[in-house]
C-alpha cells in the first residue's frame, strides 16, 4: 500500500482517520523508507514551531498593551492602517539565509546584514554557497592588509593558506555596523566560510592590525580550523595577490 505525502503530512499532524492510521502504522513497521518519510514530516513540524518560539519570549511592545487597554491615540478603530513603508534591501537575504544554515553553522547573524544593502551587495548566493560580491569581493582581491586605505568600507585582517592549499582572508565589513568574516578563494570567487557580528562595531578606525585580534569567536574558530602554518607576511600577501590568489 502506498501513502501520499498528503496522508503522511496529515498523519504527522494527528489528523488521519482511524482506518488510515491503522493501515499506515502497520506499513510503518515493515517499511523503513516510509518510516523515514514520516520522521521527516514530524521533524519539519518541530523545526517550524521551534523557529517561531522565540517570539513568545520577547517583551510585548507597550503600544500593543496600550491598544488593548483602549488607550491607543486617535481611536483608529476598525480602520485599515497601512503598514509603514520600509526601504527594501537590494539583495535577497532570504536566498542566502537558508543556505547559510548549512554553511555557517553556529554563527549568529545580526540585523546588520540587511542594512549593509547599499548597492552593490557585499554578499550573494550561488549554487548553495555564500560568495563575496561588490565592495567585499574587490577588497578581498585587491586590498593588502599592510596598505589599507583609510576609511575603506572593508578592512582585511589576515591572509593565510588553508590546509587545502588555497588562500583565505579574514575581513571586517564596516558599512554600518561591523560584520566580520572569513572568505576563501574558490576559482574566480571568494566563498564566505564564516560570518559573525563583530564585537567591536565600528572600531576599525584604531588600526588595521587589530582587525584580526578583534575577530568574533566563531570566525576565529574557523580560522584556526582552516589555517596551515602562519598568516602571510606582507611580501607573501603581495605575491599571492599577483597570482590572483590562485594556489
Amino acid at each position, binding site marked *: 500500500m502506498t501513502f*501520499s*505525502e*498528503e496522508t503522511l*503530512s*496529515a498523519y504527522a*499532524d494527528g*489528523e488521519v482517520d482511524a482506518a488510515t492510521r491503522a493501515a499506515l502504522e502497520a506499513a510503518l513497521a515493515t517499511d523503513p523508507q516510509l518510516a523515514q518519510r514520516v*520522521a*521527516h*514530516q514530524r521533524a*519539519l*513540524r*518541530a*523545526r*517550524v*514551531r*521551534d*523557529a*517561531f518560539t*522565540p*517570539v*513568545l*519570549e*520577547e517583551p*510585548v*511592545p507597550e*503600544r*500593543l*498593551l496600550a*491598544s*488593548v*487597554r*483602549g488607550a*491607543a491615540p486617535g481611536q*483608529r*478603530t*476598525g480602520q*485599515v*492602517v*497601512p*503598514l*509603514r*513603508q*520600509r526601504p*527594501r534591501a537590494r539583495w*535577497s*537575504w*532570504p536566498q542566502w*539565509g*537558508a543556505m*547559510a*544554515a*548549512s554553511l555557517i*553553522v553556529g554563527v*549568529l*547573524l*545580526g*540585523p546588520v*546584514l*540587511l542594512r549593509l544593502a547599499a548597492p552593490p551587495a557585499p554578499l550573494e548566493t550561488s549554487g548553495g554557497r555564500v560568495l563575496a560580491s561588490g565592495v567585499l569581493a574587490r577588497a578581498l582581491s585587491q586590498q593588502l592588509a599592510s596598505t589599507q586605505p583609510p576609511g575603506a568600507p572593508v578592512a582585511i585582517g589576515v591572509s593565510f593558506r588553508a590546509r587545502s592549499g588555497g588562500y583565505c582572508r579574514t575581513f571586517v565589513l564596516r558599512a554600518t555596523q561591523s560584520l566580520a568574516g572569513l572568505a576563501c578563494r574558490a576559482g574566480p570567487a571568494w566563498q564566505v566560510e564564516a560570518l559573525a557580528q563583530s564585537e567591536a562595531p565600528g572600531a576599525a578606525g584604531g588600526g588595521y592590525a587589530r582587525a584580526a585580534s578583534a575577530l568574533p569567536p566563531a570566525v576565529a574558530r574557523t580560522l584556526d580550523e582552516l589555517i596551515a602554518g602562519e598568516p602571510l607576511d606582507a611580501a607573501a600577501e603581495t605575491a599571492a595577490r599577483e597570482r590572483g590568489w590562485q594556489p
Partner: protein
Amino acid sequence: MDELRTELVELLPRLRRFARVLARNAHDADDLLQTSIERALAHAGQLRAGAPLAGWMFGILRHAWIDEQRARGRRARLFASPEAAADVADTAQGLPVETIAVQDAVARLPEEQRLAVALVLVEGLSYKEAAHIMEVPIGTLTSRLARAREALQGMLGDDGGA
C-alpha cells in the same frame, strides 16, 4: 469588556507569534496586530460566548493581513517597489542561523500555505479549527499543508535540523 482586555493581554505573545509568521518582520507584524486589536475591541459583541478568543483573533488577524496585502499590492503598483521577503533579518538579531533559515523559508511560502503553516504547525490548531479560520474546506487545508511541507523540505533539506 474588561475581561476581554485581560484575556487579550494574556494572549498577546501568541498573537505576536502568529502575526510574525504572516508579516515576516516584527514591526509590520506588530502593526498588523495593533490594527487587529482595535478591530476586535470595536466588534467585541461579535465574539460568541464560550468561543475561544485565540481562534477569533486569528481570524481577525487573517482579515487584516488580507487587507494589508491588497494595500501593498496597490502600493507596489504605484511605486514599483520590490516587496521581497527581505525582512526576516530585520528581526533576526541574535538568533541562530537555523531559526533564521526556517523563518525565512516560511516567509517564502505562498500566502495561503503560510497561513496554514501558522495555524497548524506553529499554533498547533486542529485541521477543523484552522479550516474554519481560513474559511476553506478541510480537504483544501490538508492539501495546502502538504504542499507547504513539500516546499519547506525543498528549501530546508530533509535532515530534520541543522
